[in-house]
């Protein structure tokens, strides 16, 4: 197992000049030994580039990759002692499940007794003990992908296991079972896991620490609740949650606070800046009434009965503000003027897209 340190940048172009020329902007990052990490972001954000740099498939144009302090930047993937699991099953159809699982060990000359013990253990974890002697060819796609996972996990001495969207081929209703397996396996084997996905459910469920990426930059590293409660960057607020965080421009003078141009009487402490952006999630705004001086006035533009709650979309002086309202509460009508409280312990404040308070 290894602690992985990145201090690098990567450009596919020869002489990168502008930010857009970089697939990965200069970054420093440490993946702790035994941690479960996810790299999360939309396509083109740089997450796969980062994974490929860790595995050695891509050599960074600038900087270094270290495993436990040792510089491995120049080493090939096969010299780095890592295991990889890809989107699609990579297995030998003609071999049995047991032979497939044993393959990475056999290749390295591990003794037959040790192989048997380890293969038995991994098969048990993946609930495949009963299928060990079956040919891989006849198995369903998800069983094949389980074998791929097993092959990634079978070696005890790997320094990290890297996953590239490994649940793509799994049926939606089976996904949660494999997510649970992966979590259990991680807590039992204590391997360093790095998991690439564009799916927030997968990342937030699987990882202790999620790295949220956009346009070649890692904008936040944190737990699921860090990302939900205190997004460090407006992109994180927007990307995590469905729908994402609401953002409203605010202005302050020594005596007044204006949100989207509406004067707000509130004793709530706000940043000492002339201008900033207020961020609040639809789950945390509350519908109140005209007597609440701390609320903004909005006009309802859409009401959606989502079954288990209502989603109310409104505009506040031209800005969209969404509220998630419990079904047992009164639901405003389309075109109705409502008052929405946006200042509470969950409110975040941003300046130039970065969290300031």
């Amino acid at each position, binding site marked *: 197992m290894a602690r992985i340190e990145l201090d690098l940048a990567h450009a596919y172009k020869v002489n990168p000049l502008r930010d857009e020329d970089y697939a990965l902007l200069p970054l420093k990052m440490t993946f702790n030994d035994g941690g479960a990490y996810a790299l999360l972001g939309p396509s083109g954000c740089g997450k796969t580039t980062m994974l490929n740099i860790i595995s050695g498939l891509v050599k960074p144009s600038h900087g270094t990759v270290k495993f436990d302090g040792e510089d491995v930047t120049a080493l090939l993937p096969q010299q780095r002692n890592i295991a990889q699991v890809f989107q699609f099953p990579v297995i030998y159809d003609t071999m049995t499940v047991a032979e497939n699982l044993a393959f990475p060990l056999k290749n390295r000359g591990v003794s037959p007794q040790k192989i048997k013990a380890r293969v038995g253990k991994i098969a048990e974890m993946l609930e495949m003990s009963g299928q060990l002697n079956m040919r891989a060819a006849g198995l369903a796609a998800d069983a094949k992908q389980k074998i791929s996972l097993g092959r990634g996990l079978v070696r005890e001495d790997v320094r990290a296991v890297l996953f590239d969207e490994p649940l793509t081929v799994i049926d939606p209703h089976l996904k949660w079972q494999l997510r649970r397996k992966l979590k259990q396996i991680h807590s039992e084997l204590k391997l360093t896991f790095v998991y690439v996905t564009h799916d927030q459910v997968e990342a937030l469920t699987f990882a202790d620490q999620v790295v949220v990426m956009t346009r070649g930059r890692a904008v936040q590293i944190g737990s699921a609740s860090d990302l939900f409660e205190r997004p460090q960057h407006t992109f994180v607020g927007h990307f*995590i949650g469905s729908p994402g965080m609401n953002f409203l421009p605010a202005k302050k003078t020594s005596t007044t606070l204006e949100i989207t141009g509406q004067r707000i009487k509130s004793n709530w402490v706000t940043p000492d800046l002339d201008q900033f952006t207020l961020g609040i999630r639809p789950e945390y705004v509350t519908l109140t009434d005209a007597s609440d001086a701390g609320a903004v006035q909005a006009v309802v533009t859409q*009401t959606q009965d989502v*079954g288990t709650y209502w989603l109310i979309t409104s505009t506040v002086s031209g800005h969209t503000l969404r509220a998630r309202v419990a079904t*047992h509460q009164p*639901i405003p009508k389309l075109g109705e003027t409502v008052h929405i409280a946006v200042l509470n312990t969950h409110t975040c404040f941003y300046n130039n897209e970065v969290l300031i308070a």
Partner: protein
Amino acid sequence: MQLVLERIEQKVAAQTYLYPLDLTLVPGAVTVLLGATQAGKTTLMRLMAGLDKPTSGRVVVDNTDVTGVPVRDRNVAMVYQQFINYPSMTVFDNIASPLKLRREANINSRVQALAEKLHIEPFLNRLPAELSGGQQQRVALARALAKQAPLMLLDEPLVNLDYKLREELRDELTQLFAAGSSTVVYATTEPTEALLLGGYTAVLDRGELLQYGPTAEVFRHPKSIRVARAFSDPPMNLLKGELSGDAVLLAGGVRLPRSTSNATSTNVTVGIRASALQINASATTIALPGKVELAEISGSDTFVHAETAVGEVIAQFTGVHQFELGANITLYLQPDQAYVFDANGALLSAPIFDSRQ
């Protein structure tokens, strides 16, 4: 326009794709076709469009029998899963093509207006291949909208986009549908998407039309276990029970106070939506102690899989909550929030809902 399907049936060789069904689409509204893959959604749409002729039954448009009238002689717009555009035409020409074909006036300004609505205005002079997937699908949607056909059919149009893009585009589409006068049919596998689209929902399962009605009503009053299954995400918790006086006895000796008249047998199934399971007790709730199997976090919600006395259940909580694997948990249920289905799977009683709008 008024589209009526009368005793429509579709067979291919010995296989039945659609069992005889009647469906009168609500004119000028959105109808969602909801069902898993192979449910018959695409088959039904192809019959509506005139791409296929039904084995038996009639397709009636505005009181005229159009059964067997091919698609080119009908006024229908279609959007598919794959982003289909004319590769050698610019984005402008793609959107303008149905208008040019009909030699319509003001083509320029109409294309501009649509491009603006769908945020593809900057790309009008580019070729589709130069755009991202999300932008390409916007072009296909703009072309379908340009046609201003009285019937618009969309077959899982957002399935190939990542979730943030889907969210955005779904929002725009709902507003465009509401502003237009077309009768819209939208196929999806996702219950949440159906709820967000609103309108009316037709639930399909293995070639059968199970229920049609206003979306929220079908969600709250599924006629059968099959409808409830198709229209719940996460899956509805289904527990075998036995009627005993004014209660249902569940596994593990759990007693659910709930009376139902008109049951013909004491064998029933209790259905509990994940959102009906709470973490807080009240005077009237019943307790289901158990152990956490996995907490899945979607960003806006946490889905807890738990092993309890009544069996394995899934509970849904708003926001991000951390639960350790194997931790003790007690879930609470308000008895009047449960569904009761009879031995044949038909709904005996639904929860009591307030309608506050």
